[in-house]
């Protein structure tokens, strides 16, 4: 699974929710769930590529889910079928599927559901794994293509109560019911969930989202604090054991 820098063509790019787009790129990619790519679809401006996690992979394309927040993702949102895009990746450690056995809970917040979709797809192929999915959104849910209709337990919470429970998903989540928890979402959500899991004695893996420059471990701008000193979110992560991280509340 060696990382590469490749030029590719857009397969499809569609808006699926308010400010959220799904971008597929043609090509065959060997990717572990939880890994990401540095994407760019422009010349020199903006300067840096954007780290985007992998949402899905099949034989003919790779799919990313992204939230339009700045200049880079705005350019992505204008891409059409056949447009050029550069991909550097796959990058990062990804989830170790061997660690995810028994009753596994995947907990996503907003765009944090993106990598969990592909993780769910891979886990659901493994025997001896029972996966449940818990997703929280501000409003309309998105990014649950692999999950809806196939997951034995799908819990949704929305802050505006348009779907599912009203409020934050972690307020409705009980770690004690599971052997291991996986979370991707805003840092404050992951921090609270780590504490909840620690109190319940349940291990938790989290995927960190940080601004990155190189994506390959050289620049040290995406470091996060751990009990073992600073670690690079791009090259040492983005997946970390919750117990090793020191997060701000």
């Amino acid at each position: 699974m060696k990382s590469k820098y490749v030029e590719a063509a857009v397969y499809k790019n569609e808006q699926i929710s308010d400010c959220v787009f799904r971008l597929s790129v043609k090509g065959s990619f060997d990717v572990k769930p939880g890994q990401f790519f540095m994407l760019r679809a422009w010349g020199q401006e903006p300067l840096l590529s954007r780290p985007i996690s992998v949402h899905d992979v099949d034989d003919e394309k790779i799919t990313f889910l992204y939230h339009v927040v700045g200049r880079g993702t705005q350019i992505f949102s204008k891409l059409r079928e056949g447009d050029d895009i550069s991909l550097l990746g796959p990058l990062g450690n990804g989830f170790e599927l061997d660690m995810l056995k028994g009753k596994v809970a995947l907990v996503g917040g907003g765009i944090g559901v993106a990598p969990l979709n592909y993780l769910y797809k891979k886990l659901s192929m493994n025997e001896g794994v029972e996966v449940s999915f818990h997703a929280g959104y501000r409003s309309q849910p998105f990014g649950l293509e692999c999950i809806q209709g196939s997951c034995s337990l799908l819990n949704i919470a929305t802050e505006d109560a348009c779907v599912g429970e009203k409020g934050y998903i972690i307020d409705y989540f009980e770690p004690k019911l599971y052997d291991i928890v996986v979370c991707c979402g805003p840092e404050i959500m992951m921090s609270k969930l780590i504490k909840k899991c620690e109190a319940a004695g349940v291990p938790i893996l989290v995927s960190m989202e940080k601004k990155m420059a190189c994506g390959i471990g050289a620049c040290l701008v995406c470091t996060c604090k751990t009990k073992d000193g600073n670690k690079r979110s791009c090259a040492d992560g983005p997946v970390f054991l919750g117990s090793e991280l020191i997060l701000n509340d």
Partner: protein
Amino acid sequence: MTSVNICGVELKNPVIAASGTFGFGGEFSDYFDVSRLGGISSKGLTLAPKQGNDGVRMHEVRSGMMNSVGLQNPGVEAFIKDELPQMEKMNTAVIANLGGSTIEDYVRAAVMLDKSSIDILELNISCPNVKEGGMAFGIKSCVAYEIVGEVRKATSKPLMVKLSPNAEDICDMAINCCKAGADAISLVNTFKGIAIDIKSRKPVFENISAGVSGPAIKPMALRMVYEVCGCVDVPVVGMGGISTYEDAIEFIMAGSHAIQVGTANFIKPDICVDIIEGIEAFMAREGIKSLEEIRGIIK
């Protein structure tokens, strides 16, 4: 055709990967043959290991970026033991970039590096993200003179001094560094700048200021390189926003013996190879046999 000699060290071409943007080279070896490079300047080293700065470490701006990494590094001893052996195998010149916060630390680290296999010691007196020392050494020529002189006594390695664009007088700074024993000058490091988050109404960085790099700084960096090339006799290694071969040629025409590529390594991991090949193709097209023919050609 493109080989250059920097203080007695023969580089196969004038393109060096700049400190802080290339790790210790290993991260990039998956993407291209790093032996293609003229040299690699290591991540900024300090005597003791350093965790670097807290808070936001990077902010993107128009045509550039700001960083506040704060010299996170494993320390000189760990560098020599764990990183240098694999750098030696990369078949390119190894430049150790040394930062610090006290003259004593610089000297002790230089003594350790003197006994190692590094090719060139690049003295970083210009890091804007270290509270003590660092930047202060790079602003006042008299302080720079003292630190370069002390390090000169501590090592017989070729000594290149990396200047800050924030120096009070860049030519005076370069002249003083040469008087104190510098064999070469490299410039410029990042420009000191600030960014403000208007929603939170707070500075983006905990240190308030941070170092600006990337294409945005190129015209100012080029001007400083031109001026320094006119006032010192030692080789000058120019850098600041170089991301194409045309940028590199401009620096050579301004007087640079070699150039360093920094932030552009983040845009495309093998961008240094594009620049090397671009320089070679330009020379072939223009009938240039040696970089000597165009070095410092603007007067």
